[in-house]
């Protein structure tokens, strides 16, 4: 609870969290309270302008953009969360292992990690997406997560290495605590704030990665996401037609979602990174 009190002191964190909460509320509660239209239901023609019934007009399929936006945001967050979770899980596991178990294992793990870091993630993303039949939001999340973990692993390893040399770890080791327990009890708890920040960054990256893939035409099937909304609006020439309502809402939501996350991260950085805090 102390940590929440500290976090609330950062204006950036509070603002970021506020925006994110609003976006979340819109995505999760919106479908129940703000619309009575199904996401794939056609309510009008191609790019009908905003009106009383369709506050943000219709898209190229004649579907209500406002409703699409709720479901799209939900899908994008879903993908982001799955990807963030997968990436953080793999990254923390490999990073802690590599940081704690030194020697050959560390060399091998970090060599592997570094190789993956040098290969541009978009390449693996494209190839994996092409290879996977029937991409659902969840499989996309997994794909993105599987390509995004090396950064987390590298950062976590650095933290673990420095924690490993700390006094309390030494004392625990001398007392005969086993390796696994050591990692779980003596090392991981000290990195929670750090891991959480890494998770937020992964979430941000995943939301952008989804949008990128979807824009390239490799988005999830049978679902609407912010990225697929943009993809279709581009494919169906909303820009030329001047149907701004087909691309502006998705653009704004993508941007403010990532902005809120980055802001939260910056706020936490202020608090957990003393150097940054003191100069401000």
């Amino acid at each position, binding site marked *: 609870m102390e940590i929440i009190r500290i976090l609330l*002191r950062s204006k950036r964190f509070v603002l970021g969290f506020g925006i994110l909460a609003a976006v979340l509320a819109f995505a999760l509660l919106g479908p129940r309270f703000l619309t009575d239209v199904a996401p794939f239901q056609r309510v009008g023609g191609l790019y009908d302008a905003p009106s009383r019934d369709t506050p943000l007009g219709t898209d190229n399929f004649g579907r209500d953009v406002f409703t699409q936006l709720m479901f799209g945001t939900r899908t994008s967050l879903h993908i982001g969360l799955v990807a963030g979770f997968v990436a953080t899980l793999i990254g923390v596991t490999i990073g802690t292992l590599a940081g704690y178990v030194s020697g050959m294992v560390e060399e091998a793990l970090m060599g592997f990690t570094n190789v993956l870091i040098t290969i541009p993630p978009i390449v693996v993303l494209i190839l994996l997406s092409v290879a996977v039949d029937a991409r659902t939001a969840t499989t996309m999340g997994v794909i993105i997560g599987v390509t995004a973990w090396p950064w987390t692993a590298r950062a976590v390893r650095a933290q673990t290495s420095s924690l490993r040399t*700390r006094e*309390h770890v030494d004392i625990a080791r001398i007392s005969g605590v086993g390796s696994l327990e050591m990692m779980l009890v003596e090392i991981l708890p000290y990195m929670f704030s750090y891991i959480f920040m890494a998770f937020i960054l992964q979430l941000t990256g995943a939301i952008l990665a989804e949008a990128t893939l979807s824009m390239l035409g490799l988005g999830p099937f049978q679902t609407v996401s912010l990225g697929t909304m943009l993809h279709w609006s581009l494919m169906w020439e909303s820009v030329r037609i001047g149907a701004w309502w087909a691309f502006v809402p998705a653009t704004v939501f993508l941007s403010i979602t990532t902005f809120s996350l980055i802001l939260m991260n910056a706020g936490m950085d202020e608090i957990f990174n003393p150097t940054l*805090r003191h*100069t401000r």
Partner: protein
Amino acid sequence: MPNVVEVEGLEAYYRTPAGDDLKAVDGVSLAVREGEVLGIAGESGCGKTTLAQVLGLTVRKPLYIRSGKVLLEGRNALALDRETMRREVRGKTISAVPQGAMNSLNPTLRVRNLVIDVLRDHHPRIRRREAVERARERLDLLGLPPRVLDAYPHQLSGGMKQRVIMVVSTLLDPVLLIVDEPTSALDVTSQKVAIKLLVDLLARRIIRSIVFITHELPLLRHVADRIAIMYAGRVVEVGAMEDVVFRPRHPYAAGLVGSVLVPEPGMKERTVTGIPGRPPDMRRPPVGCRFAPRCPRRFDRCDRDPPPFVVDGRKAWCWLHRDAPHGGRP
């Protein structure tokens, strides 16, 4: 002897992100006299480093001077403009050997270039050759080989770095050298070498005065003329070295003298274990004597009122000595 630097009624606070004030130095008056070595001792967080910053005129955000005077050779130092301060005071009148000698050299700058930069920024007309020559002489004086000039910091050992820093810090023959925990990262031999060098510099009159800051009171026995003991943002006792070390009047000073130092996990420095308890929260220090919660000789009054200012050839702030003549509040 004239005073080189003098502070009066100094209150120097840190502003936390939450908007609180951390009272690092809270009502201190102290002077550094020309020709002396003034030792300042105390636990971590007692405000000694902050005081050193004020004496060295290097106050920066989030630290700020809430009230009090800082006099430099009798003039108001706070009124000096930035450029004069930089050119005339820093490095030239007052110089410093910083706390973290290991990281105080720019990792991507050769010693030679640092020397040139420092000299030229005070004497714009000096030639590079002359600057290097001067540095070489000084290195020689402190027993360092001239090849050090071409080295990057990471190519130097800890002890060598310490000595290089002493060379660089005293390159402009400063009146006052502020030495902050110069020895904490060094092994015992290097510590001795470092202190010997300081004494040597003083003897050669390259520098005139030293403020020596440390948490190891016994160390001051070998160097200091006078000692000030700090606790919770205040100077609790000031006096000649012999008096303070052998006849401490303040219970904290006494505790400090008699304490054993042991390493404690997770802390950069060490705390005094001879005195149980921890220093107070400096956002809200105790109303009365700040040492009272830990003081073995505490009585009721200590909790209620700040102790008086006692002069008896030297100064101590403690209710135990309230009967002494000239008692009063600081």
